[in-house]
């Protein structure tokens, strides 16, 4: 009876949580990728309605790895609250949604973080007219905070630790946060520093807003998949790693064709000229070549979406390669 039930359960509810996500994606013909409801630089529709951003590129990279086509992806928006149920239920194949890697999410919620595509930390943004220069001066302030996030817990900890009080104004999406902050319903907006830069860039007059120096937490943001489907986890993990390794090896979308005749062995392995890494992942031999060709390496994606030349103006900082003073590091491609 128990067995019958199990079979029924699986067939009736058709959850394919633990096996064969890669096959499901291939059969479906496109990737379903969970992203934010709109955070400029990470995932937001651009002027032509195309999803763009660091996280959007992550989704596209996986789509390219599987299909060799950057357009084979459906972006599904999720809020801070809906993201985990959406992934757990199989509605999306992966999340690339500014999600902080924590032990409870990794272990208790049944997910698997496959890497970090942005090292972030929680900060505070206030109107410069307030004349506040440190987060410790915020005693009694009203703080806009996205519910269901790690930042919500960090916020409570920070104020408790410093013995100052605040009033929380819970909000659901970044847009709501913007609206309340710009209307003065709250004095302070707190979220990941990158998110603050993004919000600031979207303000009518970015000069009127200042991000305070305190970074009160570490927020490693990365893509995640359901726990247990290691094959699929590997595909997403190495799609990310391929972009990082490409930067490390100096392979970019512009020189990738020329690099095919490089004399560096790791470049040849990465581009599928040598070895059979594509086969191991059940992908095409040139999967990484296609990612670099169609999306670019990590640096290209970073500079195009969040870097100093974009409205977000986020310096590489921690997100520079380990060889250049940052902590971005991918295991070797061999």
């Amino acid at each position, binding site marked *: 009876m128990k067995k019958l039930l199990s079979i029924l*359960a699986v067939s009736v509810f058709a959850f394919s949580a633990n096996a064969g996500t890669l096959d499901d994606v291939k059969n479906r013909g496109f990737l379903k990728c969970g992203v934010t409801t709109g955070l400029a630089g990470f995932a937001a529709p651009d002027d032509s309605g195309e999803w763009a951003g660091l996280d959007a590129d992550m989704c596209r990279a996986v789509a390219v790895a599987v299909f060799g086509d950057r357009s084979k992806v459906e972006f599904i928006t999720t809020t801070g609250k809906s993201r985990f149920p959406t992934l757990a239920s199989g509605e999306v194949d992966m999340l690339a949604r500014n999600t902080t890697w924590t032990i409870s999410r990794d272990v208790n919620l049944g997910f698997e973080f496959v890497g970090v595509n942005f090292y972030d930390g929680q900060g505070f943004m206030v109107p410069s007219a307030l004349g506040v220069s440190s987060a410790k001066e915020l005693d009694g302030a009203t703080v806009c905070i996205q519910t269901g996030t790690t930042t919500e817990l960090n*916020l*409570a900890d920070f104020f408790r630790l410093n013995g100052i009080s605040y009033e929380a104004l*819970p*909000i659901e999406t970044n847009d709501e946060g913007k609206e309340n902050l710009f209307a003065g319903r709250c*004095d302070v907006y707190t979220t990941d520093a990158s998110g603050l830069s993004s919000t600031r860039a979207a303000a009518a007059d970015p000069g009127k807003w200042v991000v305070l120096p305190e970074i009160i937490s570490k927020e490693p943001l990365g893509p995640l998949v359901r726990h247990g489907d290691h094959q699929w986890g590997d595909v997403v993990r190495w799609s990310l790693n391929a972009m990082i390794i490409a930067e490390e090896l100096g392979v970019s979308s512009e020189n990738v064709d020329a690099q095919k005749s490089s004399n560096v062995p790791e470049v040849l392995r990465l581009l599928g000229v040598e070895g059979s890494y594509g086969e191991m992942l059940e992908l095409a031999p040139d999967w990484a070549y296609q990612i670099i060709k169609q999306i670019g390496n990590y640096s290209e994606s970073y500079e195009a979406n969040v870097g100093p030349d974009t409205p977000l103006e986020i310096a590489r900082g921690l997100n520079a390669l380990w060889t250049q003073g940052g902590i971005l590091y991918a295991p070797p491609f061999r």
Partner: protein
Amino acid sequence: MRSNANFFSDEKFRSIFFQTLVIGLFALGIYFVVQTTAYNLEKRNIATGWRFLTDPAGFDISFSPFINFKSTDTHLDVYFVGVLNTLLVSFCGCIAATILGFLVGIIRLSSNWLLVRVAYIYVEFTRNVPLLLQIILWYSILIQLPRVKQSLEFLDIFFISNRGIYSPRPIFENGFSYVFIAFVLALISSFILRRWAKKRQDNTGKQFPVTSSAFGMIIFVPLLLFFILGSPLSFDYPALKGFNFKGGMVIRPEFIAMFLALTIYTAAFISETVRSGILSVTKGQREASASLGLKKSWIMRLIIIPQALRVIVPPLTSQYLNLTKNSSLGIAVGYADLVHGFGGISLNQTGQAIECMVIVMATYLTISLTISVFMNIYNRSIQFKEK
């Protein structure tokens, strides 16, 4: 075979058989759902259980008028804060919606052309626009109020800004409890007075000014005592300190938006219920009472409304239930109700979705059933009593 056929031709047996079958299938269905859920949770390594209820919440809730909530309190405390906030907005909403609904319902039957049109437009507009949009509309209006530093001031003690309405908070000092006791006693004696007056009127036909004397008793007796005891009441006034007002009481825009939207939306439905109730009383009743020489307001109060109530109360109950359940939309504007706090933040921080939802649903069920019970008791009390 034959006996079988006989059984099925027996209406009573057939009905019992099919009812048992339906119940059995339903139970089986539930069993499958529970089993499947448990199976899938286990397969995905999602821990289940109720232990998280006693874990510290770790986040803050700023709208908690009844409980002093800190981030070190447990998820269970989050639950209680949520329940109280849900009850608060539902209770205020039900009362205000009833008053507004009755008013609009009666206005729509009046002979004033302009008022009737205005009421008609109000009803048709509000009940045909989704409630969620109305909540968001009210909130959007409220956060466009002046910023906290430019608050509108009234008498230097009331401050209105987009952070809410700040007013003085009463502090009850020694002796105020006597005033309160006097108030309660006055309330009770008013009830006794009313019963006595009614009995006397039934027996002798003599009337007694119950309303005015009751009001006098309820207001003046405690007031007199209050001054005799030397005004044992002071106020804590709000004052702008740093980022926000400190002290006093505050009504948050989130609450106001919820309250306004729920009241205005539900009152539109209640007004239609009231209108249909009044129209259900036959014209002859009105004419008969008019021919007895009753005043117009008496006809409404003594003849029409009591009969209309029999038609009004059952649908009114469902409007109360709707309002209470609709208060769960508070999440749209960050009102810290049950769904937002416990069913939202706690759920999300702990990942215990099923447990949280079961608790939230059971709570709404309990609240709704309680409302139904009381409304049913009231309904029975206003039904025709055969004498």
